[in-house]
């Protein structure tokens, strides 16, 4: 587990199951987001499906590039704070073996108003999908294995 915290951004990789809603509560406490300045929180949670491209998927292996992954996620969180009036940003991402129904990714942004919170949260997940060096390998129910070639557009 890698944990990188800079003021009000936190980026973390999890090697085992994590609970998005407890992560959010813990981060809100740690970053003191109950200070009366934060009027909006926007959250995205990505969960593993048991189907992809028409096939039944039994489990997923998430490979990453240790070091570069954390660095890229930190860039992305910092960008959110630069581009929008955001008070805090959080990114948590699973690596390793994942089963259907397990959370894969959590992104969240806090702001005074909903517009910035929504846009910043969307930036966190979209930039992550385009730039963070993660790769998914699927084990299909028929026993075969394949690398996911690219992410779905939205």
């Amino acid at each position: 587990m890698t944990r990188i915290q800079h003021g009000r951004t936190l980026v973390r990789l999890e090697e085992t199951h994590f609970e998005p809603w407890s992560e959010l509560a813990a981060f809100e406490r740690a970053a003191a987001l109950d200070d009366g300045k934060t009027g909006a929180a926007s959250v995205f949670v990505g969960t593993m499906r048991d189907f992809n491209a028409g096939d039944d998927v039994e489990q997923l292996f998430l490979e990453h590039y240790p070091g570069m992954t954390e660095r890229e996620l930190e860039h992305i969180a910092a960008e959110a704070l630069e581009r929008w009036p955001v008070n805090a940003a959080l990114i948590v991402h699973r690596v390793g073996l994942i089963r259907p129904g397990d959370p894969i990714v959590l992104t969240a942004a806090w702001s005074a108003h909903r517009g910035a919170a929504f846009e910043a949260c969307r930036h966190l997940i979209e930039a992550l999908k385009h730039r963070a060096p993660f790769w998914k390998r699927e084990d299909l129910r028929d026993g075969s294995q394949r690398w996911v070639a690219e992410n779905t557009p939205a």
Partner: protein
Amino acid sequence: MSITIRYFASLREQVGRGEDILDAGDATTVGEAWKHLHGADMPPRVLAAVNQEYVAGDHVLADGDEVAFFPPVTGG
């Protein structure tokens, strides 16, 4: 004088190994490093990073650099 080359995910499986070591005299750019090792131009879908930051194929290499080649990313 050496440069470490790393491969990830499906590209590592296609190349058949996770790492190469290149003498810095063999290549001055990332694209030339690929060409020297694989005998062809870097495929357009292959992404490259030097010292864990994305770069283009014309990025100039320095001694001790860590170069990574990998396929399109699929996290999230």
